[in-house]
C-alpha cells in the first residue's frame, strides 16, 4: 500500500515537471516580440561578394577610313586592340574576401569591332557625323579614324556631342593607329575605373581620402537646389535678380538631362541682413576686405540664413550669391599666397557653392540682370556638376595623354553635360548605389541580430527581399550592357534598403525589455518553484535512503 502511494506521488511530481518542460517554451514563444525572418544568409553572401560578379562592359565600333594606299586588316586591328587594352586595363580587379574563400571582382571587358569605312570622304563632306550611325546605348561608342588632312604633325581628336569621336592620325600605319586608339581609350576610362574599383573593393577605407569622393554628394533620388541671394545690408543697397529667367535659360537643360539619375527641384530666395559671423580681414593700403582659405569654412551662417527647406527631406544643394554690406566691401577671396581669386567663388564639399559679388552701389539699387547672371550661373553650374559627380572625362584624358594629341570639341548643346560625361556618371552611380545598398542591408541585418528586442514587421522583410531582387537585376543588366536598366534597379535597391533601414518601427522596444518580463512573472514562478523543488529534493533523498536499505 505504502509502496504504491510512493509510486503515484512520484508520477504526479514527474507529470508536473513534464508540464513545465512543455510549458516553458510555449510561454517563451507567446511572450516574444514579432520578428519577420530576414534573409541573413543571402545578405551575408552579397556583402562577401559571393552572389555576383560586377561587369562594366564597353563596346567600341571603329570605322577605319579606307585609304587606297594602305591595307589595314580590320579583324586584326580589333583583336590587337582588345588584347592591348585588356593588358593595360588590368581587367580583373580582385581582392581576397575577408574569409579567404572567394574573391571580390570587378571586370571591365572591352569589345571592339572594326569596320571598313569606304565612303568616308563622302560622309565627311556632308560634315554632319552627328547624324550618322547614332548609338543611343550607354557603353557603346563609335570612333572614326581617318588620315590627317593638313600638315599638322599632331594627332587631332574631335569629340562629338553624341557618343562618338573623330580621330585624325598623322601617320597612316597600323601600329600607330593601334597605339593611338588604345592610348585614348585607356586614358578615357582609367580614372572612372579607378573610382569604381575603389568603391567596390574598399568601400569603407578611409585611409586614402579622395578629394573627389569628398566633394560629391551622397546619392539621392532627388536633390533640392536652392539659389540664395544674400544681401549684407539692404539699408545701403537693395538687390534683386532675374533668377527665374536665368534658371530657365541656363540650368533647365541640365536639370532635364540629369533627371534620369536624380531629380533636381530648383528654387530661389533673397535674404536680407545676411551677416557674416566673423569680421573679414582688411587690407588698408588697397582698401579692400578679404577672406583667407582658413576663414571660408566659417562663411555660412547656418543659424541666421534661412537655408533649410520646410517641406523637402531630400538633401539640399545651396548656391549663394553673397553681396557684402557697405562696411565690408569690396570683399575678395585670397588664396594662401595672397592673390585675389579671380572668380571670387568657392565650393563647399557636399553642401554647395558661394560666389561673392561687389556690385556698384552708387544708385542704392542693383539688379542682377540676365546678362550678369550668365557668368554667375556658369560658375554655379560648374560647382553643381562637381557636387553631383559629373566628371569632365575628356579633359581628364587630355592630362593622361601625351602632348602630341590635341583635343577639340564640337560646340556642345546647352545641356552643360555631354554624353560621354553622362555615361561615365551613370556607371559611377550604379557602382556606388550597388555598394551602398549592400552596405545598408548588411548594417540592417547586423542591427536586427544585435538587438533581440526589436520588432521586425513584415513590410521590412518585403523591402529587404525586393532590394535584394533589384540588386540581382541590376547586376544582370550590367552584364548585358543595359546601363539604364541597371541604374533603374540600383536606384530601386538603394531606396528600398534605406526605407527598410530607416523605418520608424525599426527601434528596439525599450519599454518592454526582457528584464521586465522576468520581473512580472517572478511572483508566479518563485512560489510555484519552491514546493516543486522541495518535492524533488525529498524524492531524491527517499530514493537514496531506499537504495541504501535495499
Amino acid at each position, binding site marked *: 500500500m505504502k509502496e504504491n502511494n510512493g509510486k503515484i506521488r512520484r508520477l504526479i511530481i514527474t507529470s508536473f515537471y513534464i508540464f513545465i518542460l512543455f510549458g516553458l517554451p510555449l510561454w517563451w514563444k507567446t511572450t516574444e516580440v514579432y520578428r519577420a525572418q530576414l534573409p541573413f544568409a543571402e545578405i551575408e553572401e552579397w556583402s562577401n561578394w559571393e552572389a555576383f560578379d560586377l561587369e562594366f562592359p564597353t563596346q567600341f565600333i571603329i570605322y577605319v577610313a579606307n585609304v587606297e594606299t594602305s591595307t589595314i586588316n580590320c579583324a586584326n586591328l580589333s583583336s590587337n586592340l582588345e588584347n592591348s587594352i585588356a593588358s593595360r586595363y588590368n581587367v580583373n580587379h580582385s581582392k581576397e574576401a575577408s574569409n579567404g574563400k572567394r574573391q571580390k571582382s570587378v571586370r571591365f571587358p572591352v569589345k571592339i569591332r572594326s569596320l571598313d569605312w569606304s565612303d568616308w570622304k563622302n560622309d565627311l563632306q556632308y560634315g554632319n557625323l552627328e547624324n550618322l550611325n547614332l548609338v543611343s546605348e550607354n557603353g557603346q561608342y563609335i570612333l572614326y579614324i581617318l588620315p590627317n588632312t593638313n600638315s599638322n604633325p599632331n594627332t587631332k581628336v574631335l569629340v562629338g556631342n553624341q557618343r562618338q569621336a573623330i580621330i585624325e592620325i598623322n601617320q597612316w600605319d597600323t601600329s600607330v593607329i593601334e597605339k593611338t586608339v588604345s592610348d585614348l581609350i585607356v586614358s578615357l576610362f582609367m580614372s572612372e575605373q579607378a573610382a569604381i574599383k575603389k568603391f567596390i573593393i574598399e568601400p569603407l577605407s578611409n585611409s586614402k581620402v579622395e578629394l573627389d569622393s569628398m566633394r560629391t554628394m551622397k546619392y539621392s533620388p532627388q536633390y533640392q537646389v536652392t539659389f540664395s541671394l544674400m544681401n549684407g545690408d*539692404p539699408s545701403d543697397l537693395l538687390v534683386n535678380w532675374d533668377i527665374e529667367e536665368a534658371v530657365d535659360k541656363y540650368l533647365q537643360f541640365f536639370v532635364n538631362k540629369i533627371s534620369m539619375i536624380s531629380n533636381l527641384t530648383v*528654387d*530661389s530666395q533673397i535674404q536680407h*541682413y545676411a551677416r557674416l559671423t566673423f569680421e573679414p580681414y582688411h587690407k588698408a593700403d588697397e582698401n579692400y576686405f578679404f577672406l583667407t582659405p582658413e576663414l571660408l569654412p566659417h562663411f555660412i551662417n547656418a543659424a541666421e540664413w534661412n537655408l533649410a527647406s520646410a517641406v523637402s527631406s531630400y538633401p539640399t544643394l545651396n548656391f549663394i550669391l553673397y553681396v557684402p554690406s557697405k562696411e565690408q566691401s569690396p570683399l575678395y577671396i585670397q588664396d594662401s599666397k595672397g592673390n585675389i581669386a579671380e572668380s571670387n567663388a568657392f565650393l563647399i564639399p557636399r553642401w554647395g557653392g558661394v560666389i561673392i559679388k561687389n556690385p556698384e552701389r552708387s544708385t542704392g539699387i542693383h539688379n542682377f540682370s540676365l546678362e550678369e547672371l550668365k557668368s554667375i550661373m556658369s560658375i554655379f553650374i560648374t560647382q553643381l556638376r562637381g557636387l553631383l559627380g559629373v566628371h569632365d572625362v575628356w579633359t581628364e584624358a587630355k592630362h593622361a595623354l601625351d602632348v602630341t594629341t590635341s583635343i577639340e570639341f564640337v560646340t556642345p548643346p546647352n545641356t552643360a553635360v555631354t554624353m560621354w560625361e553622362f555615361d561615365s556618371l551613370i556607371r559611377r552611380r550604379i557602382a556606388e548605389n550597388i555598394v551602398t545598398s549592400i552596405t545598408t542591408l548588411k548594417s540592417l541585418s547586423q542591427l536586427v541580430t544585435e538587438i533581440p528586442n526589436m520588432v521586425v514587421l513584415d513590410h521590412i522583410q518585403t523591402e529587404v527581399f525586393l532590394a535584394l531582387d533589384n540588386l540581382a537585376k541590376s547586376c544582370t543588366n550590367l552584364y548585358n550592357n543595359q546601363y539604364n536598366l541597371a541604374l533603374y534597379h540600383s536606384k530601386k535597391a538603394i531606396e528600398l534598403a534605406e526605407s527598410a533601414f530607416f523605418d520608424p518601427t525599426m527601434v528596439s522596444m525599450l519599454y518592454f525589455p526582457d528584464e521586465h518580463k522576468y520581473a512580472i512573472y517572478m511572483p*508566479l514562478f518563485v512560489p*510555484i518553484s519552491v514546493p516543486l523543488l522541495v518535492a524533488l529534493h525529498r524524492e531524491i533523498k527517499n530514493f537514496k535512503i531506499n537504495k541504501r536499505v535495499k
Partner: protein
Amino acid sequence: MTNKDLAYNGYLFAMWQLGRFFSFFVLLFTVVENYQHNDIFKESLTIKPLSDGKLLTHFQFNVRTNEIKEGKAFSHYKLFPRAIGQIIQSYNAHELHLTFTQGRWNYKDWGYPIVPSAGTGVELWAWLWKDGKLDKNWKSLTNALAGLFCASLNFIDDTITVQPKLSFRPEGLYNATELSARAELRYGSLPHENVCTENLTPWIKLLPCKSTSGIASLLNGHKLYDSNFHSMSIHVRPVCQGFECLNKHLEIVQTVSAVVDPVRNSGKRDWSLNQIFGRQLSLACPLAEESKLEVILSEDGDYKLSPDADTVVRKNDGDATIALYNLKNLQLDTDISMTWNEDVFKYNLNYEQPRVYAHRFFTGYGQERGGIKVNIFNKSTNFTVPIIYYDVIPWFLKLYLHTLKVQINGEEVQDSPIKDLYYQPAVDRSRPNVIEAELLLPPNSITTLSINFDKVFLKYTEHPPDANRGFDIGSAVISSVGEGFSYLHDFVTRNCSEDIPTTACYHFSIRVYTETLLVSLPTPDFSMPYNVITLTCTVIALFFGSMFNLLTRDFVALQSNEGDKDKESKD
C-alpha cells in the same frame, strides 16, 4: 511684360525729348518700379491704451506677392517667406491661419482684440483644395508647421481635427461656389500649448528684415513674454489688388499682439517705447513700402505725446483719433512716449463695454458626469445680434444632445433662439463632438446654453504623464455673421487693408473666444496593472501550492497509541 514695354517707351520718349542725361533717370526710375513691382512689404505698430490702464501693442507685417498663383508651380521667392510659400504650395492650401496665444483676452475690459484669433494655446485652420489626398496634406501641413515653429502642432490628429460647417469662413478673396465644390476646411487647436521664444525666433526669421531693422527690432522676447496677454499669428490668404480686383495677390500677414501693464511698474499709465520693449526704434525697414506707428488716442484725458505725431487722423466710422508716425521719413532720435497729467492712475468705471462677449464654465461635480454652460452677453440696447456658436468637445466627454437647453435671461423661452444647429457626435478615439449653432441674441440679454455629459474612463496608456492635472478643452468661438454688422467691429479691426472697399470687408467676421476649460477625468492608479499581475500570480501560486501538497502528501490521522499506553499504565 507691360512694365518692360512701358520702360522701353519711356526710354525712347526721354531720348527724343531731353537727351541722354535725362534718360538715365528714367531708367533708374523703372528699376525702382521693377524692384517694388512684385512683392510689397508693409509694417506697422499700433499702440492703444486700454481702459484699465494696460497698453495694447500690435505689430503687423504684410507681404504681398502676385507671383504665387494657384496651380502654377512657383519657386523663386523675393520678400514672401520661402518656408511658408513652400508649405502653401506643396500642401495645396487656399488659406492658412496659425495663431499662438498665451493668456486670456479680457473682452469686458479691453474690447475686441485687433487680432482675429485669441483662443489660448495654438489654433490652426486652413482651407485646403480637394486633390484626392486632402487629409494627408493636412497631416503633412501640421507636421511641417510643427517643424518650422518648434511647436507640438503634429499632435493635431484625427481626434482633434474638425471640419466646421458654419464658422471660420475664408478671410481672403474667394468664390463661394468654387470654394464649396473644391475646397475643405480643417481646424485644430491645442489649448495646452505653451508659447515662448522658441516659437518667436522662427517667426521673426520669416520677416524680410528679420529683427535687424524696422519695427520688428522692438520685438524683445524678454519684454514680450512678460505681458498679460500675447498672441503671435500668421495668416496667408489670397487678396484683391485695387478696387476693381483685377489681380489676385497672395498675402501673408504676420502679427504679434501683447498687452503690457505700465501701471504695475509705476502706478501711472505713462509709457515710452523704450520702457515697453527695452529697445529703441531706429529706422524703418528699408524694404518696406510703408512703415508706420499708430497710437490710438482716447477721447478724453489730459495727455501728451512726444515727439508730436506727423498727422492725426480721425476715423469717421469709429469715433477714434489716431496719431500717426510715418517711420519712412522720420529720423527718430528720441523715444516716442505718452504721458498723462495725473499722479496715480485711477480706474475708469464708465468705459464702453463690447457688445457681445461670453463666458463658459463647467457645472456639476464628481468624476462621473458634468455639464458645460455658456453665457453669451449681448449688451447692445436695441440690436438683435445673429451669431454662430462653435464648440469642440473632445470624445472623452460624452455629450447628450437631448440635454441641450437654451435660456434667455435665466428663463426658458417659447421660440428657441437657435436658428440652425449642426451637431457632430463624437466617435471614441477618432473624432470629437462638434456643436455649431446659429443663434439670435435678443437686445440686452444673457443667452445661456447648457449641455450635460458623461466622463469616460480612459485606458491607462491614454493619460498624459501629468494625468492629475486634467485635460484642457479648447475655447468655444462666437463668430459674427453676414454683412452689415459693422457695429460689432471695434474701430481697430484691421483685417481689411486700406485699398479694399469697406463693404467688401465685412465677410471678415469678428470672433470672440471663451475661456479654455480644464476637466479632470477619473485617474487610475498607474501601478495597477503590475499590482493586478502580482496579485493574480500570488493567488495562482497559493492555489498551486495547496493543490500540489494535496496531491503529493499523505494526510494521515495521528494515532494516539502512546497516550493510551500511558492511561493504561496509570490505571
